[in-house]
């Protein structure tokens, strides 16, 4: 198990190095580890799709071998360039105050992380979607040591949602291959590791503009949201998607602030592509990310038009290239979503579906006051939105606000064009969709409140 996680993270580390060695990336070691884990898992599972194209079976060695070329290349680059690398301080100086609070938050975060691992690993995969959609595919791939040639044309249609991307099923297969058996208990380690990675990325995201006690406070708030920690344990894809959404947005905002660090733009593009490779909703975040880049170029960037177009093209191309293998499979096998179709996007249909707004608003308020799932989080967020309204559209905060607004709007649009009964659909999905942008919402709260000297 440890070998699997170390290998995945090591390969992710190399991908991250290949993306960032040219630039001053200023990533903390722990932040690098967290990003590397998500990158490694996403890219190794994406690589496994090519085994299907070339009709090759899976073994750990075969899966690792193509990545060894990257490791070799990186080693050469490292030994030629590492002396030239400079690392400027990216994080705010640490404060010596609030020792008691800091200790308390660290214990709280450690408890939540340990409890997430315990809850995940005490049971094998058993929750509905985890079994019905993802684990069954992982089992099929593991038992046949490949993606069977008739999988997309026949087998996948026996199980629900054949159109869902395969990042996590293939990641689970990868863990099984390393373990050498179908241990559907240990494989769940994937999920609390995403949980810890999200907390790490949020912490260091906040540390770039605030001291450690402030960053620990918001990291603790995120870790202690019951719904968030529960989904670190049940084998659902919402937390992995949340990780890719968070990192794609956060690194994009970092690039907006420091355009010399082009690696941040590259990491953002790659993470957005992996969001699409994790869950269908990830494609919405790809579109939002591209739109944010366009918005930034229109309002805040003084570079030449060709330079802007080059960045935009590169960004969109990376996302497209990562999404392409799955798009090809979906198109060729005719895998379509049975609830949401682009045909329903017509303005006439949207107007006819506008009655759904009432149940949507009702469900929104139900979640906002659903303390059992969210503690006070959404209430605090709305309070901040009202009290600090002057700050939500200034400087860095503006892009985070727009990103969150577009995320909520995107989901509302999805509900409008969804062919399933709206109450059923909302009750089943909205509390999970909120998880996708929850870490970013916590980051937004931290950015908006940062100017308050009392905190």
């Amino acid at each position: 198990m440890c070998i699997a996680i170390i290998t995945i993270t090591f390969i992710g580390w190399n991908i991250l190095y290949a993306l960032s060695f040219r630039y001053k990336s200023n990533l903390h070691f722990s932040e690098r580890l967290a990003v590397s884990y998500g990158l490694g898992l996403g890219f190794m599972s994406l690589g496994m799709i090519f085994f299907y194209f070339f009709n090759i079976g899976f073994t750990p060695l075969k899966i690792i071998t193509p990545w060894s070329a990257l490791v070799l290349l990186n080693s050469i680059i490292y030994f030629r360039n590492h002396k030239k690398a400079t690392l400027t301080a990216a994080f705010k100086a640490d404060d010596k105050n609030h020792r008691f609070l800091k200790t308390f938050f660290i214990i709280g975060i450690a408890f939540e992380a340990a409890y997430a691992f315990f809850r995940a690993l005490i049971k094998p995969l058993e929750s509905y979607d985890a079994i019905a959609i993802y684990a069954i595919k992982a089992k099929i791939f593991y038992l046949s040591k490949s993606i069977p040639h008739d999988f997309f044309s026949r087998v996948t249609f026996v199980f629900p949602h054949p159109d869902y991307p395969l990042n996590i099923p293939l990641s689970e297969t990868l863990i099984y291959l390393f373990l050498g058996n179908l241990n559907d208990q240990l494989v769940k380690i994937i999920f609390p590791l995403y949980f810890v990675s999200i907390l790490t990325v949020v912490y260091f995201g906040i540390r770039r503009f605030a001291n450690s006690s402030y960053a620990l406070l918001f990291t603790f708030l995120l870790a202690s949201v019951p719904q968030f920690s529960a989904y670190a344990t049940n084998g659902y894809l919402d937390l992995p998607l949340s990780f890719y959404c968070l990192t794609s947005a956060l690194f994009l905002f970092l690039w907006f602030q420091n355009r010399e660090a082009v690696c941040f733009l590259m990491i953002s593009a790659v993470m957005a592509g992996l969001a699409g490779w994790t869950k269908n909703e990830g494609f919405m975040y790809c579109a939002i990310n591209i739109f944010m880049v366009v918005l930034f170029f229109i309002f805040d960037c003084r570079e030449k038009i060709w330079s802007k177009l080059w960045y935009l093209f590169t960004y969109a191309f990376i996302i497209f290239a990562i999404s392409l293998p799955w798009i090809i499979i979906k198109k060729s096998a005719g895998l379509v979503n049975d609830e949401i179709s682009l045909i329903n996007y017509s303005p006439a249909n949207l107007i006819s579906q506008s009655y759904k707004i009432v149940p949507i608003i009702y469900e929104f308020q139900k979640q906002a006051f659903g303390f059992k799932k969210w503690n006070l989080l959404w209430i605090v967020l709305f309070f901040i939105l009202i009290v600090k309204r002057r700050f939500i559209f200034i400087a860095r905060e503006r892009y985070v606000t727009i990103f969150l607004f577009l995320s909520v709007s995107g989901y509302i649009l999805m509900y409008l064009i969804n062919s399933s009964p709206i109450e059923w659909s909302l009750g089943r999905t909205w509390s999970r969709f909120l998880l996708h942008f929850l870490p970013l919402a916590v980051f937004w709260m931290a950015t908006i409140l940062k100017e308050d000297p009392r905190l």
Partner: protein
Amino acid sequence: MKGNIFKITLGIWLILWVSFITRELFRKGYFYDYKALIFRSLEGKRSYVTGDRFYEFLTFCNERLPPLANYGWVGVEPESVDMRRAAYYLYPHLEKKDYPDFILVYDKPMIAKAGYETFIRLDYVRYILKRKGDI
């Protein structure tokens, strides 16, 4: 003022945090689940989360169904979590809606199904029917 709002909010947050964890552990019974699960083997854990009785039947079916035979269900609610878990544990056997090779009957006393005969029983209410003729 701002400091007080912060302290009160954090205080309520912490009280809710502790109460939700405690509630989950004891009122929702997670503690007893963990206690029951912690010393079980992987197979035992699978059985516990699936329901010992149902898992026993799934294991029985897995042992008795011929390789690659398909099956249908009687006595398990369609689209239910039990149905999904069954599909997971019974793979590589695949479910077939119309005229499957075998019908798995769970918690139903002897049923008569045209074109099928009793294949093997686990007990009076858990058994497998086989399609008449060669499979």
